[in-house]
């Protein structure tokens, strides 16, 4: 814990991160973009397609993971540009000021992300996590509750990674072992001892993955239960076979049980071409805490409101886990709400303690932030930002 008592009188008041300068080079629509900010909030407005989300994406890429679009590194370089790209920022946080940079080279298979901290190459993304965290809400997440469980697992995985940096590596290894086992089952006649070995790895990593997700859901649920909010509170739980096994007994027994299940399922999994049991089938269940209604059963408006409160809960959870309130990135989040809810949205977002970044095509909807934010109107030229 790096919480600084002087700055953090309560659990929700961890010192927040803020960007002071952002520089983009050959990033999506931007050739060379630079922005300096001082306020607790930054508003990005301008017509659709002008590149507001690109700026938020660049910020999200300064934290571990693939950013708010989940993009491949090669897809980020400016079209008709040299191929490589970079995003850099001066970041203020509880540890002081740091300069973070991420980017990829122009080479064809430039699939490895380059990370720099204070001008020195850093070994991995975890170096970023010490200096900056971000939580975001984008229009792509509007269907989080109704679409497949995949997105919801990814959502939890990202939160789990904030307190358990090894989590993402374990999910990748689990999936890799699962694919290998399935490949052997499909072609048939595989060495049973090879399958044993893969299933042992799947069980060990799968149970660890499920445990970290359960912990993330538990913390998120806690964070959703408190705080003053005008939005419906969510209750969060992760459900699935491995979660049930973990609830029933110690992790080692869950591992043995998953291993036995996988061994018993070989014929069936091979025939079906899918793995029936494992944490890749788990789901994050979100309900309205007051009414008990499943989030997916709510109207579009109700879902959006629940999503906002879940996002705020995630920000509180991250702040508690790492002692630093994350940046909050809200992409077109105000559009669904009436003026009263919009006021609440911005007030509550600012109260979380991290710098708030808000984008919206309709500047009028962002008016509650005027006087509290650096205001950036993006023109069609993209590169030319006018701060007003």
């Amino acid at each position, binding site marked *: 814990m790096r919480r600084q008592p002087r700055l953090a009188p309560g659990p929700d008041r961890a010192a927040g991160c803020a960007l002071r300068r952002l520089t983009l080079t050959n990033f999506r629509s931007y050739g060379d973009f630079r922005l300096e900010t001082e306020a607790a909030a930054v508003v990005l407005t301008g017509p659709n397609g002008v590149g507001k989300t690109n700026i938020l994406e660049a910020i999200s890429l300064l934290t571990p993971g693939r950013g708010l679009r989940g993009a491949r590194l090669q897809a980020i370089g400016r079209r008709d540009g040299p191929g490589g790209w970079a995003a850099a920022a001066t970041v203020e946080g509880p540890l002081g000021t740091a300069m973070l940079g991420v980017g990829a080279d122009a080479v064809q298979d430039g699939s490895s992300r380059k990370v720099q901290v204070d001008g020195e190459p850093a070994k991995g993304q975890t170096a970023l996590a010490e200096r900056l965290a971000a939580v975001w809400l984008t229009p792509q997440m509007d269907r989080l509750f109704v679409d497949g469980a995949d997105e919801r697992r990814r959502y939890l995985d990202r939160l789990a990674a904030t307190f358990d940096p090894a989590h993402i590596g374990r999910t990748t290894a689990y999936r890799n072992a699962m694919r290998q086992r399935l490949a*052997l089952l499909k072609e048939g006649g595989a*060495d049973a*001892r*090879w399958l044993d070995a893969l299933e042992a790895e799947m069980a060990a990593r799968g149970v660890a993955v499920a445990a970290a997700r359960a912990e993330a859901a538990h913390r998120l649920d806690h964070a959703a239960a408190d705080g003053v909010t005008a939005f419906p509170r969510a209750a969060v739980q992760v459900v699935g076979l491995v979660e049930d096994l973990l609830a029933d007994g110690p992790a080692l027994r869950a591992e043995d049980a998953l291993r036995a299940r996988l061994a018993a399922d070989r014929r069936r999994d091979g025939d079906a071409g899918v793995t029936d049991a494992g944490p890749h089938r788990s789901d994050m269940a979100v309900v309205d805490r007051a009414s008990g209604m499943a989030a997916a059963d709510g109207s579009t408006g109700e879902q959006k409101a629940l999503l906002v409160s879940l996002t705020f809960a995630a920000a509180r959870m991250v702040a508690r886990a790492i002692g630093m309130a994350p940046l909050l990135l809200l992409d077109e989040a105000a559009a669904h709400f009436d003026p009263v809810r919009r006021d609440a949205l911005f007030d509550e977002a600012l109260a979380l303690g991290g710098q708030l970044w808000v984008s919206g095509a309709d500047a009028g909807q962002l008016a509650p932030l005027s006087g509290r934010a650096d205001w950036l109107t993006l023109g069609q030229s993209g590169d030319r930002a006018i701060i007003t």
Partner: protein
Amino acid sequence: MPAPAVERLIQQLARLPGLGPRSARRAALHLIQRPEAALSPLLRALADVQDTVRTCSQCGNIDGRDPCEICRDPERDATALCVVERVGDLWAFERAGAFRGRYHVLGGVLSALDGVRPEDLAIDGLIRRASAPGLTEVVLATNATLDGQTTAHYLAERLAPTGVAVTRLAHGMPVGGELDYLDDGTLATALRLRRPIER
């Protein structure tokens, strides 16, 4: 534009691990401009390697003799075998002076997606050596990657009927870390703290 022969040299150099096109051009220039000091000795060294170096038929090490110096050395502890993925890993152990027994180089790890199967690795030879009288312990020193761990598990099952003690390097290896890059002290510690593998 360099002459075709020079271009071919640059291309060959650029295919070496750790050398990109730019460093390959620098290396080629360096060689060409110093025929006596650099080019001839390199040519001789390459020819020597081609003529004399072979793979040890017992352990898979690369050496001037077959069996290799390690397999011939009577001072080596004949009760213990250390299984590594690649010759580079064997050399890392030797640099660290961490292991007094002999080695067995697998030649890779199992990978269903890359099409590396048990028969593609030096596993039959390992079982044979592990079954030899006097051998009491096999240390599995595959990398801490998923494929490295899976392979270790698999080998533990294959080795079970031989009755030898099968151990695994202590944890603490970075995931995805390769033995070759670990510093000598880390390697010695991982070896000293090795423990029986759970099957």
